[in-house]
């Protein structure tokens, strides 16, 4: 809220700094510097922009960019220790590596479409708005698994005799075997025999401890996100020839003991972070204002050395006998330099923002920021269209107290 009576009054409100906003000259004062860009994280500095705009982008990054996550879980069999709803909740939080642009939002069905007589819900699920995943894992003892394997080998031998008749059955059995085996994704790096160093020995001990007794005698005792198998519907096989997987293969969903089984069918749907945090495309998107550090008085050599020591982030340094501020970016505003009588003035520069965006891996961080800007523009434009429609209507209906419109 601001009262535009006179500029002197504004200066009182803004601590003596008058930051003008001129949309025509905005690009002259505005600049971006990208500091760091990796696959999952982007850090950059924006100068010449103010808090309301920067915050708007941050909020859009958190809540308005759509992604795809598991929404409905049909549980056929769950004899594990994890409760049904907890399992469904965990499945929803797994990030799925697919570009949401290919999909539409699934419309929420109005109640009229439910066939009350048959108690069957007519679903709006289609290939345009849903992804199907299957999760079927059974935990067995290694010895039991070997027995099952043997019996299958015998069956296979029998079937080889009547090949033509049973070709289809073999395919089914292969698929079942694949689901029951451990599917741990081994990276593309090749196995090199390298010299054992200290680090390797420590790592070996760690691995020994991690492989507990259970892991050695059971198979599938850990249900990982790599066990989620994508089931293509309609023409999804052609749109996604490489298949759809979760972003990371080793997210632990549940742990099983001997004889326990999880058999579950999941439907993934497009949504935004506003509805549920599982649809949020960023781990976090945040900003801080850059600090402004000023030295108000000249200090003697002794005092300067003391100041250099007091700062825990080593912001100050003595170069050529003069005290200088070298790493102002590292300042954490701890206020240690204000405790002594050093004459340091500490503040925040209100129009410089150090932004960082950590993506969950679904969308690249630089693309996320660009999408956020697009969404912001769309919001402004749609509101503008509404306003213009309003003025047209108003010209035809005058002298009305309250004016509402679609």
């Amino acid at each position, binding site marked *: *809220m*601001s*009262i*535009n009576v006179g500029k002197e009054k504004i200066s009182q409100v803004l601590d003596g700094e008058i930051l*003008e*906003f*001129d*949309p*025509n000259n905005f*690009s002259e004062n*505005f600049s*971006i510097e*990208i500091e*760091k*860009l990796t696959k999952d*994280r982007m850090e950059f500095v924006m100068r010449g922009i103010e808090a*309301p*705009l920067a*915050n*708007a982008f941050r909020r*859009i990054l958190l809540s*308005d960019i759509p992604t795809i996550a598991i929404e409905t879980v049909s549980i056929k069999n769950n004899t594990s220790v994890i409760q049904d709803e907890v399992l469904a909740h965990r499945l929803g939080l797994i990030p799925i590596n697919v570009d949401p642009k290919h999909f539409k939002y699934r419309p*929420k069905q109005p109640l009229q479409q439910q066939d009350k007589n048959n108690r069957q819900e007519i679903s709006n699920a289609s290939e345009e708005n849903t992804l199907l995943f299957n999760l079927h894992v059974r935990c067995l003892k*290694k010895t039991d*698994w070997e027995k099952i394997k043997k019996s299958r080998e015998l069956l296979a031998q029998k079937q080889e005799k009547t090949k033509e008749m049973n070709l289809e059955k073999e395919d089914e059995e292969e698929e079942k075997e694949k689901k029951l085996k*451990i599917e*741990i994704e081994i*990276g593309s790096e090749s*196995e090199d025999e390298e010299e054992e*160093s200290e*680090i*390797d020995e*420590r*790592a*070996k001990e*760690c*691995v020994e401890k*991690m492989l507990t007794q259970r*892991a050695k005698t059971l198979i599938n005792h850990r249900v990982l996100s790599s066990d989620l198998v994508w089931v293509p519907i309609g023409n999804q096989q052609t749109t996604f020839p490489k298949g759809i997987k979760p972003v990371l293969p080793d997210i632990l969903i549940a742990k099983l003991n001997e004889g326990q089984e999880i058999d579950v069918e999941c439907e993934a749907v497009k949504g935004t972070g506003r509805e549920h945090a599982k649809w949020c495309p960023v781990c976090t998107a945040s900003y801080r204002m850059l600090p402004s550090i000023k030295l108000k008085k000249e200090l003697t050599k002794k005092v300067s050395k003391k100041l250099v020591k007091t700062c825990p982030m080593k912001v100050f340094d003595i170069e050529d006998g003069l005290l200088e501020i070298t790493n102002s970016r590292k300042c954490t505003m701890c206020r240690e330099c204000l405790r002594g009588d050093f004459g340091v003035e500490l503040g925040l520069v209100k129009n410089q923002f150090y932004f960082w965006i950590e993506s969950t891996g679904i969308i690249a961080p*630089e693309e996320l*920021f*660009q999408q956020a*800007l*697009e969404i*912001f*523009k769309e*919001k*402004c*434009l749609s509101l*503008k269209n*509404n*306003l*213009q429609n309003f*003025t047209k209507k108003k010209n035809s209906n005058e002298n*009305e*107290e309250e*004016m*509402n*419109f*679609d």
Partner: protein
Amino acid sequence: MHKSKKLEIQTKNGNLRNATFTIHEESHTLANTVRYVLAHDDDVNFVGYSVPHPSEFKVNVRVQTQQQKSSIERFDLALENLCLVTNSIQDEFKNKLEKFKEEKGIQKEEVDPFVISLKRQLRKEYKKMKANID
């Protein structure tokens, strides 16, 4: 859910100098930004916004203008300016991103050598276990 109104405007006796805009399906994201732009508008005497209740997804923006100026026009102009500003931010970001990618490219995260060794050992173990099963 059938989406109905987006925008309602309340004025006294149709006088467009002072108006309250009730915007549905919006929050602080847009309202604070529009308020900020209007606050720097010389023709606007007063501007403020509020979220009437956090459970309801709407905002109220109050605009009061100088003589003979329509608050709707000012609001419209503010939104247009925001679009222009966003355009220049987009262009600047694209340029800087291209430059950065040319010069440095996408960097790799620094990983602890112990973690790399750990992953390698794990892979070996799991390969052994898989071989035993097969």
